[in-house]
């Protein structure tokens, strides 16, 4: 376990460097670089902020030197100061990050809890009405623009039926509510964003579980298990499901970048004050330091998510050794 972890972490180092390199290339894409930080490009930048940024990126120096200097800053967790309000970018991200991570974890959990039973159930009855309904749902999930789904859900549940709030994560004056009311208030605010965020992941995951389960059910050890007279329940849940879930864990890890990226859209639709919304407002205001900071953090979150998925895979399946082809 320990040596696996070390090797896995070492493999991350070149990727980390690649990530910083891509971030750096993106900064230098701006028109007129290195003269890009002129006031006209970002009207909200104060002269002081522009100076600070020029120092941060060392715009008078050659490209490679600039990259190394920027890297040093990043590794000391200094992401610069925002153009918009002059606050440190790392502070701005820090106060937004927990909301985004909570939302993403909630929807990952939701996907996991709902998709696996659906997938297993339809794998046990291929061709049934339920199975065909799943196929329909999968195609819808892959083809529907989720932000549109969010709009429709807001119209139906928020505007017409008035059941659920359509923006923010708590009602005005929620601080004064008693504890249990505040919890209910939170939950009400989270129902729409979390379900809509999970929609396409749900489709992908249940389809994947289904095909993985179907494949496992055709294996010989399942026939053996049935032949030795084990009850069907034991065969399905102890023998088949455990093996079928292995690839699902990988898929869960792979769905993380999509979820984090999607938070830009969902947080701005539902006015949730998370990192995605910050990213969106920074992009609109051309707040370069904040954009770069969030881009970097987003990639790091993906790396960490994949690492966790790999470790989970390792724990569930002792056959895995690090020599897996990447």
């Amino acid at each position: 376990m320990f040596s696996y972890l070390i090797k896995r972490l070492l493999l991350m180092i070149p990727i980390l460097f690649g990530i910083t390199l891509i971030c750096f290339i993106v900064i230098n894409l701006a028109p007129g670089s290195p003269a890009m930080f002129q006031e006209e490009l970002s009207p909200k930048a104060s002269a002081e902020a522009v100076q600070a940024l020029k120092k941060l990126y060392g715009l008078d120096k050659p490209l490679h030197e600039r990259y190394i200097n920027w890297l040093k800053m990043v590794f000391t967790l200094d992401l610069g100061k925002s153009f918009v309000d002059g606050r440190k970018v790392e502070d701005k991200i820090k106060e937004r990050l927990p909301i985004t991570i909570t939302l993403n974890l909630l929807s990952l959990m939701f996907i996991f809890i709902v998709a696996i039973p659906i997938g297993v159930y339809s794998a046990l009855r291929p061709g049934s009405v339920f199975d065909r309904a799943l196929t329909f749902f999968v195609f819808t999930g892959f083809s529907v623009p989720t932000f549109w789904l969010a709009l429709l859900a807001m119209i139906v549940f928020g505007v017409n039926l008035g059941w659920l709030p359509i923006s923010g994560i708590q009602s005005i004056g929620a601080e004064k509510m008693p504890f249990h009311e505040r919890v209910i208030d939170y939950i009400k605010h989270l129902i729409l964003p979390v379900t809509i965020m999970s929609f396409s992941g749900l489709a992908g995951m249940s389809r994947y579980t289904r095909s993985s389960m179907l494949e496992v059910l055709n294996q010989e050890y399942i026939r053996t298990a049935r032949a030795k007279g084990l009850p069907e329940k034991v065969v399905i849940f102890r023998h088949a499901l455990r093996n079928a879930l292995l690839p699902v864990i990988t898929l869960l890890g792979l769905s993380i970048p999509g979820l984090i990226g999607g938070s830009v859209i969902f947080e701005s639709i539902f006015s949730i004050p998370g990192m995605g919304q910050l990213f969106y407002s920074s992009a609109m205001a051309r707040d370069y330091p904040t954009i770069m900071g969030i881009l970097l953090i987003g990639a790091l979150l993906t790396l960490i998510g994949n690492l966790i998925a790999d470790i989970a895979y390792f724990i569930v399946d002792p056959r895995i050794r690090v020599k897996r082809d990447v």
Partner: protein
Amino acid sequence: MFKIIFRRVLKNKFALAGLIFIFSIVFVAVFSSYIAPYDPYEINVYKVLEPPSKEHPFGTDELGRDVLSRVIYGAKVSLKVGFLAMGIAIITGTILGAVAGYYGGLIDSIIMRVVDVMLSFPTLFLILAVVAFLEPNIYIIMIVIGLTGWMDVARLVRAEVLSLKEREFVLAARAIGASSFRIIFKHILPNAIYPVIVAATFSVGGAILIESGLSFLGLGVQPPEPSWGGILSIGKDYITVAWWLSLFPGIAIFLTVLSFNLVGEALRDATDPKYWTED
């Protein structure tokens, strides 16, 4: 071979419906100026936010423009971005994947590490960052969507090339002194074409979804140019009073993407050797 595949795809009712829808939407996009009942840019202050009626089947928007005409013109943007972004992604992915698989060694490691790095960015973050730095217009959006969507194709082509490059016909071509370029493009890639076509079909739909999301956020195609995502973004502003702004462009996106996905799925089945024993 193409004929057999084509026939097999047409046998699938859903794929056939998808194909018909794609052809009609392409037709609508090409002849939009003849089909659209009104000028999509024409502002009419007396007809602001009218609900769907005989005169305006999809209603009017906040400036009194006809939504149906704007949806028809919007098809142009979506299809252009969808096809060209797909082209960029497929060409980049195929070349890099083929080179990585064919040469192996250090070149392979470098290209595959780049793939890993690109895959660790949330795609939408990367696209938004680039679009925020550059002036967003339809061409930049195509290029950015294309350049952030090639990684899966590269992996796929690399795997195909790895399995093909040791086959006899490739060894024979090498033995008679064919150049690497010729071997890759004349001998190997034509044999790896089907999975690439399948991936291409799916990626058109994917690119249309991303473009509409960007336009919805206001970082894609800029108003007053009509785009499906752009109309939806106005729909969000008037969500409590004008549901039709939110409904119709979304249906257009959904059906278009669904059609590409249905065709892609049928193509995958039709080209999968697993199913080749039937006829």
